[in-house]
């Protein structure tokens, strides 16, 4: 009879660890939730920080390129480009900024790709002002054919995560003896 009572008291008892088993379930769930959110936050933080760094570098590059209020000529533009010190892939070019709204073309990456297989034909200044056959009609830098090819390839292959970042600014370009506003495009990518 005494034995029977002892057994009754030990009902459900399955040892020291077995007794704490139900309490381990919330602990494991808690740890799982915490580490999943922590990892996702860390990844988000890393992506956003990289994104911010890319933008920051693009702004730094464009600040260097805009350090002089007027670009006097092609050599001056090249010299300013040489001052850019970065490990990023980048390119910069000038396009006209007409005062007449009717002659204004929105130039974005889509325009560069859909309108021209060879971007150099888009990245030109007004043919009425500059000799269209002159190499100095095309203001882009770093002035290497490889760089422009890399830019074109990157534009075509960019995806959501690895975008080509393009900033545009107004700047003055001295053409002959006149300083006129033009658009400075700065493209940066990973």
């Amino acid at each position: 009879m005494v034995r029977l009572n002892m057994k009754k008291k030990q009902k459900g008892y399955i040892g020291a660890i077995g007794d704490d088993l139900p309490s381990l379930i919330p602990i494991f769930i808690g740890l799982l939730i915490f580490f999943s959110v922590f990892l996702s936050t860390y990844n988000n933080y890393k992506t956003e920080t990289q994104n911010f760094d890319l933008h920051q570098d693009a702004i730094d590059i464009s600040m260097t390129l805009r350090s002089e209020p007027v670009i006097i000529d092609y050599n001056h533009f090249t010299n300013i480009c040489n001052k850019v010190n970065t490990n990023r892939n980048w390119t910069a070019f000038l396009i006209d900024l007409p005062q007449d709204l009717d002659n204004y073309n929105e130039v974005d990456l889509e325009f560069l790709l859909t309108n021209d297989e060879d971007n150099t034909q888009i990245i030109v200044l007004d043919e009425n002002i500059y000799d269209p056959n002159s190499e100095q009609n095309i203001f882009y830098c770093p002035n290497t054919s490889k760089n422009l090819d890399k830019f074109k390839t990157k534009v075509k292959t960019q995806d959501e995560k690895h975008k080509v970042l393009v900033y545009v600014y107004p700047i003055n370009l001295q053409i002959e003896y006149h300083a006129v506003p033009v658009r400075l495009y700065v493209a940066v990518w990973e």
Partner: protein
Amino acid sequence: MNKLKRQKAQAAITDALFFLTIIIVLTVMLFKYSASYGDRVDLAINNLYFKEYSNSALKTIFYSEIPLDYNKNIFESEEIDYLMTAVKTDFYPDKHIGSGDLNYMFNPIDEDIPNPDVSNPDDIAKYNLFHTIKSVMMPLPSYDFTFYLYNTNDQKFEYIMLKITDFENSENDSNKTYKLNDINMGLSKYYLCDPLNYNDIREVISKANDIHASSVPLTFTAKEGRDETELEITSTFAIWPANKSIAQKELEKLNCKIYND
């Protein structure tokens, strides 16, 4: 004592539930931080870029050159000058930019031979300032802006230009000369204004969100009798994303006249 011993498992599960609660609170905080971090980074990037853009626009306006004769093409013009020098020269004799009211502008290059009824050579600087500002903001069609020259000595505006995107009348006016902004489907309208005081413009502009502004102090010289006085003029360029917060009727307060040539 025995009773407590028997309830050991219940105490353990209560501790675990407390632990889970703490974890959930921490997780929610972490998640909130993660979600808002992207917004904060975007905001910081936008601030950096648009601040730089407005700086660059102001610099471009100051260093642009304009024709001083009636020729529309600067490259065929025989006489040119820096835009701001032309504005200062215009200001010098009568402490006033242009020939008419602050919100009025002749078209100095309307015809080959200027017609005094429609064109006035005194407005060359004002006209070119208007069109240069319009031009430097063309790469950002979805942004509205204001540019003004404020005389801090006399507490009055010497020049004030506004671009406001009109979302209200876009269908009625789309067949007119206003340029339809493809990005936000509004009509870009450009104004010259003559506000009574600084508070009026501040009241209207403050309705826009995310304003990025850049200011440069300038010194203008004006002739007063036989003497010359130096005046402090603040040049300010402010941009903001076009939205419906500034209604067309608000512009009546500022005595604005539209110029969409």
